[in-house]
């Protein structure tokens, strides 16, 4: 008999969700996490007495408790967590800002429809038809890749509006440069424009602890600080994992959530891992500002998606970062969140992993500082100057992301190649998480749930 019926590599959101499903139905399950904290891309760290969240700006896919079929509520049922006791805080409202126009959106799709009507007179009907089409669209039926850019142009024939709609959908979940698969577009369109943003009442830490407690209550085991050296394979099957410290753990089935390139490497399957490395990475800076300053800058907006050029393209920059477009998030701007003395302003810009990789060790701090400054100057044009308000600041680069999340190239949305059914060349080794194709916190957890339902519990 194997040591465990299921070993899951990675204690991020997809790994924890997969673990809860398996443990709930009595499978002996072990999660292996390389770091000392759970969460993967969506974790947290402490600096100078502040808990800072990585990844999370907001959760997408908001749904009220009564809407049973909504992804968020299905997820809670699958994990046997009480949705009623999970307190959600909805966004104030968000904005897409281009030089020529701005669009507002919130958790009610009518806000965006009304905003399109005002900013793009004559395009309202086409946009409403698009919204209806996205409501009906089945993004989960297996279909070949189809260009979201071409689709959107066919439906709207208004280049500026098309770009403006694509910006948030791409920056919150597209692993490809320049274009996006239509199915992925539809998933993101629903998650952001039809369902919307919310936060858990507290921080990601409490949310992760809720998942950990549930997993352990069902008898699941988790080891932190336990990096995996390889997946041991015999006769076309995974038989277990060997840890970096040399220990071997045998398993009937293995689920890997560390992404496609890393899984290819761990199982030494005959493919070139470099082919699967995603190109989109980001630099993020968290600034702490006095409450009054954050209020002045945010003007009651939650997340701003900005581009300073109407010809904006989603892609890896030539320089270390591209401050000309990005995301500005005010994480306290959700209904019912208590405002602390110091509020956060988070800025995310596209960054080039390759360029960061080539920076000499001794120049890294300076390069980071320069980029933080470039980013601040750009964002000041969008929200107003805040240079004098910064009490504390911390930032992370594609190199930081790679180090802490096992995502090759710091590619937060993983590989442009997605393995929808989670299968690998090995019978009992499956991929879950970012490279299975569902993104965001709710999406990655549904990925873990789906892979266990389809392959492990059957």
């Amino acid at each position, binding site marked *: 008999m194997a040591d465990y019926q299921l070993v899951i590599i990675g204690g991020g959101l997809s790994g924890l969700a997969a673990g809860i499903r398996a443990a709930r*139905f009595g499978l002996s399950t072990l999660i292996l996490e390389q770091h000392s904290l759970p969460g993967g891309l969506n974790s947290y760290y402490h600096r100078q007495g502040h808990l800072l969240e990585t990844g999370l700006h907001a959760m997408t896919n908001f749904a009220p408790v*009564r809407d049973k079929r909504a992804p968020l509520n299905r997820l809670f049922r699958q994990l046997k967590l009480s949705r009623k006791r999970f307190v959600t805080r909805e966004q104030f409202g968000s904005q897409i800002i281009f030089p020529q126009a701005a669009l507002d959106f919130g958790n009610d799709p009518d806000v965006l429809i009304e905003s399109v009507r005002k900013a793009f007179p004559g395009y309202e009907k086409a946009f409403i038809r698009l919204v209806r089409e996205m409501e009906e669209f089945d993004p989960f039926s297996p279909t070949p890749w189809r260009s979201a850019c071409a689709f959107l142009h066919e439906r709207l024939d208004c280049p500026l509006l098309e770009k403006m709609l694509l910006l948030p959908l791409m920056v919150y979940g597209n692993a490809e440069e320049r274009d996006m698969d239509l199915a992925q577009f539809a998933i993101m369109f629903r998650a952001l424009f039809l369902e919307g943003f919310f936060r858990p009442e507290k921080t990601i830490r409490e949310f992760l602890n809720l998942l950990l407690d549930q997993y352990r209550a069902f008898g699941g085991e988790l080891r932190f600080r336990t990096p995996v050296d390889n997946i041991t394979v015999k006769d076309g099957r995974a038989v277990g994992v060997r840890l970096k410290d040399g220990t071997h753990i045998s398993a009937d089935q293995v689920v890997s959530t560390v992404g496609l390139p890393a899984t290819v490497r761990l199982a030494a399957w005959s493919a070139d891992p470099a082919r699967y490395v995603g190109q989109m990475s980001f630099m993020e800076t968290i600034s702490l500002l006095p409450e009054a300053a954050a209020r002045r800058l945010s003007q009651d907006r939650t997340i701003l998606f900005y581009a300073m050029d109407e010809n904006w393209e989603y892609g890896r920059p030539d320089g270390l970062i591209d401050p000309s477009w990005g995301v500005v998030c005010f994480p306290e701007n959700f209904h019912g969140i208590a405002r602390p003395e110091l509020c956060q302003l988070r800025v995310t810009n596209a960054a080039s992993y390759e360029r960061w990789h080539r920076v000499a060790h001794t120049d890294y701090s300076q390069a980071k500082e320069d980029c933080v400054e470039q980013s601040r100057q750009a964002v000041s044009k969008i929200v107003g100057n805040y240079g004098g308000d910064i009490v504390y600041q911390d930032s992370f680069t594609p190199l930081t992301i790679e180090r802490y999340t096992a995502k090759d190239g710091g590619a937060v949305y993983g590989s442009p190649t997605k393995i929808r059914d989670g299968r690998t060349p090995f019978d009992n080794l499956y991929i879950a998480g970012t490279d299975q194709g569902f993104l965001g916190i709710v999406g990655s957890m549904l990925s873990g749930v789906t892979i266990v*339902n389809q392959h492990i519990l059957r």
Partner: protein
Amino acid sequence: MTRDEIKDLILEIIEDIDEDAEFDELDHDAPLRDQLDLDSMDFLDIVMELRKRYKLQIPEEEYPELATLTSCVNYLEPKLKDV
């Protein structure tokens, strides 16, 4: 198990899956899915719960037998008669 006990068992499992399930106006001969607004993922949980509790293996092609409360009872009655 008697037919009534099986009925209670199914309702109890559903209640466990969905904290908001309402059974007051449940039509025993109409599909559970539509009435309770459940999806295929929830249905898998009924199957998994039966497996966990009674070591009952229900093959995928027989899942439609669980469509209504009455069909559940008909299908499970012989399988749970010694429980």
